[in-house]
Structure formats: structure tokens, C-alpha cells
């Protein structure tokens, strides 16, 4: 306990308040009622009392293995369809701090939608991953991207290894390497594909992957595609990780007892569903002690954390050389698309040859590359404009989180993370919250099963440097109103202690070098 204090240079405030017992019971009651009605509707659909509007097998296939009988499809037909109008809302402007949305109505309870033709203007956007406010349609980034579009066009029409390697890509990769403080970097066209196509190139059969419980689908897919053995440790729990590492070193591979070829730890910088930040100093200490490799996915934390926006490594004051593979995406803080991997020169040269993405996937489009280059230079302060976006985001985060906690909502996650999950729990409140906030001109993202555990549904706010204090105050006022209307203020200010230790004490010794 004493030793871990030495690793953290700043206080690490993370809290996940426990679900109140009454709320959990009532949530199950709500799901029980909906399940009963789901069975009734399925019965009516099967006996043709009601018209069946969802996908079913053809008559000839009714004797085959049923396709739509599992819980996910039952949930989809009977619960998701009732609240479906809160998702897939079509927007018709740039998703900046305010966004325009096309109004739609449904006359058959969300099975089909029709557009009324009206456009709802200036909705405060609390759902876009626009952390530094680069989603703009005017400004230096847009002008530079327009110039490059007229020079290079929009399409690349080839993969990186064939004819798709532009000088813009080389310029981007040098800039990314300089930004992160690593030797070399490589950029890919799609953030999801960066994870799922590069992890198989790094590990294979005979290797061990230790992956966090709540890792993103791209990391899980990449780990499964690689063919390595996967073991899961509890979310952000260093005792669980150390136990797995010890077992791996002591026992080796399952049947043959040979040592593992490689041990790779997969973690994310900010977990977007929980708003929690990885305990990077402890992970690095464990990695050094047990001689394993670390793959850090900074999709949400690059640009959003750290005093100059260099991500979670800078936030904890660590050296980028300790992280073996630094991966991130350009989708969130840079307002573009694509992903990158940074690390040592040998690693990146290997990935240039052996990554599936480099061989088969089309490379980044030139205007997108220019957007990334301009926004990165703007964050680094090299283009002359001194817009303190990272500081604005940090201020917005602290203010918003503090006010929500004071109002009495249950908020998960770390104090410094710009992703703010507000717990809703009950299924009717998911739909009600989305609709009530839209009535008050605020766009939020609500999340339920299967992205979260079934009773822990939440509304997830993504703060942006483009939000002014007035916008945040308006949003907070409306959230307060809706919270009173829907009885969402569950917090009893009883925080679960962070350092509950079910396992033995960890021992972080200094390395001998």
C-alpha cells in the first residue's frame, strides 16, 4: 500500500458508487414486466394475432436450427424496439458543440420512421467524441484540408504497400512520432482496423494476452484473431493482473508447461463506458517486474489528457519508452478518421511489412491526413494560434463533473476523464431520458444492454473544448430538471473505497537496471 503511493505523482480519484439496493430491485421488476410482455407479444406474433414486423426465417426454414430464438434477439424485438428512437438519430450539420438534427416520428411504435421535414436547429451536442473541438466547418484545419483536397483529390485507390503511400502519409507519421515522443509511427485508415489487424501481427499461437475485462470490441477481436491464449483480469484491478502474471510465469503454457513466447497486456487509456483511467504507473511497474509487453490503446485519451494533450502517459508523468506499443485513433480528439501505432523503429518497420492493414486496406485519404496534421500542429502550439483547447477541456471536465455530483447523480469514473457516465438503471428511464433531453434541445447518448451490464444502463456525456460555460450551464440546468422529473438522483454519497484488496499485497520492487 505504501509502495504504490510512490508511483503516483498526483492523486488518483476514481469512484464507482454502488447500485442502491432498492433501485436494483425495481430495475429487475421493470425488466421482469417487459419480459412478460415480450413473451405475450412473441406468442401473438407466432399465432398470427399480430403482424410480425421483424426478421423471421422463411416458411421452408422453420424446421432448421432457429435463428432468432436467443436472448439477444428477444431483447432486440421486445425491449430495444420500444426505445429505438433515441439511437441512430440523423444529424445534418457538422457535429460541433451544437448540431442540427432531422426530426422524425414513428406511427407504429418505432418499427418505421418518417421524416416530418423539419430540422431541429442548434441542439447542444453532448454525445460526439469531439474532445478538443476540431469538428468545425471553418478555420485553419478546414482551409488546409480544402487546399489539399483540390491538390490530391479525395481517393487514394490503393493500399500502403502498392501505390497508396503519399508524401502526406510520411509527413503525418513523422509528426505523430514527434507528438508522442516515440521513435517511429505508422498511420492506418480505420481506428477499429488498427487494433483488429495489428494485434494478430504482433502475437500468435504460444503467446499470452492479458486483457482488461472492459476492453473495446476492436481489442477483443484482434486478440481472438491472433490465436493467442487470452486471460481476462478484473477492470483496472492490479492485484488481479499480478496474480495472472505470476501464474503465467510459474506454470507456463497449459499442457506442455513451456514458457510463454510473449506476454502482452492490453489496456486502454480511458475506458469510454466507465469513464475510468488506467492505472498506468502500476501496470508499467508490473510489466517491468514480470518482463512482459504493454499495448496501450489511447483512443479516447490522446489529446484529452495531460497538460499538453499528449495522452495518458503524459498525464501520469511517465516516459513513452516504457510503453511498448502506443496505439491511438484520430477520430476523437483530432476530428478526422483513422488510427496510428507508435513505438520503436524495429517494431514499426516490422508492422509496415506484416500488418494486414498495410497490405490490404486502403490508406488514409489526403484531406483527412491534412486535417490531422493541422490539428496536431495546433495542439502542439506550432502553427501560431494559441487556442488553449486542452486547458479548456480540463476546466470543462472538472466543472461539469463537480456540478453533477453536487446535484446528487451517480457518476462513474475518474475525476479527470472527459467521458461522464450518468447512471440511469431502469429501462424506461433510458428512453425517457433521451426523449426529454431532446425536447429541451440537448442531444445525449444513452447506453443500455448489451454495451453495459443489464441493470447498469447509463447516459454518457462527452465533453468538448468547444463547449462554452453558458452551454454547460444550460445543459446542467436541463439535466437537473430532467433528473427531478425522472427521479434520477440516486447518490447517497457513499463511495466504495478504491483500494479494496481481495488478493495479497502487491510488491512493486524497483528493477535492477
Amino acid at each position, binding site marked *: 500500500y505504501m509502495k504504490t503511493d510512490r508511483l503516483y505523482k498526483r492523486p488518483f480519484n476514481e469512484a464507482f458508487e454502488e447500485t442502491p439496493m432498492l433501485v436494483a430491485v425495481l430495475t429487475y*421488476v421493470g425488466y421482469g414486466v417487459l419480459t412478460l*410482455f415480450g413473451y405475450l407479444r412473441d406468442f401473438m406474433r407466432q399465432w398470427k394475432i399480430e403482424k410480425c414486423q421483424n426478421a423471421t426465417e422463411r416458411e421452408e426454414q422453420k424446421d432448421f436450427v432457429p435463428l432468432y430464438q436467443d436472448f439477444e434477439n428477444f431483447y432486440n424485438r421486445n425491449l430495444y424496439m420500444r426505445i429505438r428512437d433515441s439511437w441512430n438519430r440523423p444529424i445534418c450539420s457538422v457535429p460541433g458543440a451544437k448540431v442540427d438534427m432531422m426530426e422524425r416520428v414513428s406511427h407504429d411504435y418505432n418499427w418505421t420512421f418518417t421524416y416530418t421535414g423539419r430540422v431541429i436547429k442548434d441542439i447542444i451536442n453532448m454525445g460526439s467524441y469531439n474532445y478538443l473541438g476540431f469538428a468545425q466547418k471553418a478555420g485553419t484545419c478546414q482551409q488546409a484540408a480544402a487546399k489539399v483536397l483540390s491538390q490530391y483529390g479525395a481517393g487514394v485507390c490503393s493500399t500502403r504497400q502498392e501505390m497508396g503511400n503519399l508524401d502526406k502519409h510520411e509527413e503525418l507519421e513523422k509528426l505523430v512520432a514527434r507528438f508522442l515522443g516515440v521513435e517511429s509511427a505508422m498511420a492506418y485508415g480505420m481506428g477499429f482496423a488498427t487494433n483488429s489487424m495489428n494485434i494478430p501481427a504482433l502475437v500468435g499461437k504460444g503467446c499470452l494476452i492479458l486483457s482488461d475485462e472492459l476492453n473495446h470490441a476492436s481489442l477483443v477481436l484482434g486478440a481472438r484473431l491472433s490465436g493467442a491464449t487470452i486471460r481476462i483480469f478484473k477492470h483496472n484491478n492490479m492485484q488481479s493482473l499480478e496474480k495472472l502474471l505470476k501464474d503465467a510465469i510459474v506454470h507456463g503454457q497449459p499442457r506442455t508447461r513451456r514458457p510463454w513466447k510473449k506476454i502482452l497486456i492490453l489496456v486502454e487509456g480511458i475506458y469510454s463506458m466507465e469513464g475510468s483511467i488506467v492505472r498506468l504507473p502500476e501496470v508499467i511497474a508490473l510489466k517491468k517486474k514480470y518482463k512482459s509487453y504493454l499495448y496501450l490503446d489511447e483512443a479516447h485519451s490522446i489529446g484529452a489528457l495531460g497538460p499538453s494533450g499528449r495522452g495518458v502517459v503524459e498525464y501520469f508523468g511517465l516516459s513513452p519508452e516504457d510503453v511498448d506499443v502506443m496505439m491511438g485513433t484520430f477520430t476523437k480528439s483530432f476530428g478526422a478518421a483513422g488510427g496510428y501505432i507508435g513505438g520503436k523503429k524495429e517494431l514499426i518497420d516490422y508492422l509496415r511489412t506484416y500488418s494486414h492493414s498495410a497490405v490490404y486496406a486502403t490508406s488514409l485519404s489526403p484531406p483527412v491526413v491534412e486535417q490531422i496534421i493541422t490539428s496536431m500542429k495546433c495542439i502542439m502550439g506550432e502553427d501560431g494560434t494559441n487556442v488553449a483547447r486542452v486547458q479548456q477541456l480540463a476546466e470543462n471536465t472538472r466543472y461539469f463533473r463537480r456540478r453533477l455530483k453536487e446535484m446528487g447523480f451517480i457518476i462513474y469514473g475518474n475525476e479527470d476523464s472527459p467521458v461522464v457516465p450518468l447512471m440511469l438503471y431502469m*429501462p424506461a428511464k433510458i*428512453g425517457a431520458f433521451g426523449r426529454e433531453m431532446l425536447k429541451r434541445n440537448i442531444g445525449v447518448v444513452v447506453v443500455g444492454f448489451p454495451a453495459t451490464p443489464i441493470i447498469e444502463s447509463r447516459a454518457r456525456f462527452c465533453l468538448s473544448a468547444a463547449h462554452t460555460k453558458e452551454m454547460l450551464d444550460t445543459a446542467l440546468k436541463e439535466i437537473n430538471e430532467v433528473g427531478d422529473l425522472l427521479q434520477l438522483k440516486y447518490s447517497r454519497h457513499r463511495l466504495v473505497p478504491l483500494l479494496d484488496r481481495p488478493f495479497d499485497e502487491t510488491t512493486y520492487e524497483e528493477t535492477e537496471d
Partner: protein
Amino acid sequence: MDIKSMKNYLYWLYCQFELITCSYLMEPWEKLLFYTFNITMLVMVLYMAYIFVPVHITMAFQFFLHLFGNQHENTVSIVK
């Protein structure tokens, strides 16, 4: 004014009931079915309470009276 705030409060309570039991999400005929079932069960429980609770209370009262009644007789005899 008091009646109005009372009505608003009752409407708010009804909204909470709708949200908790998810009848907010149901189609009108489903709501009708659900409320009919609930109100029928509630009326049946109240009717049973109306019929049986006085009988149970008088029986319990007599039982306790009998218990304490015996003790009283014993103490009175000792004092004498």
C-alpha cells in the same frame, strides 16, 4: 393553489409508477391489460383484508388476553 400542487404531485407519482414498471414504454392496449391486472389484484387483496383482518385481530387479542389473564390470577393468589 394547494389543490393544484397536490394534483401535480399525484401526477408526478403516477409518472414514477409508469417509469418503474415500464408501462411508459407500453402500447395503449398493453397498458390497459397491465393496469386491469394490477387493479384487479389490488382490489382482491384489499377485499380479503377487509373481510379477514378484523377476525384475525380479534382472535389474536383473545389469545393474548387468555395468556395474560392466567398470570393475573396467579399473582393475585400469591398476594393474598
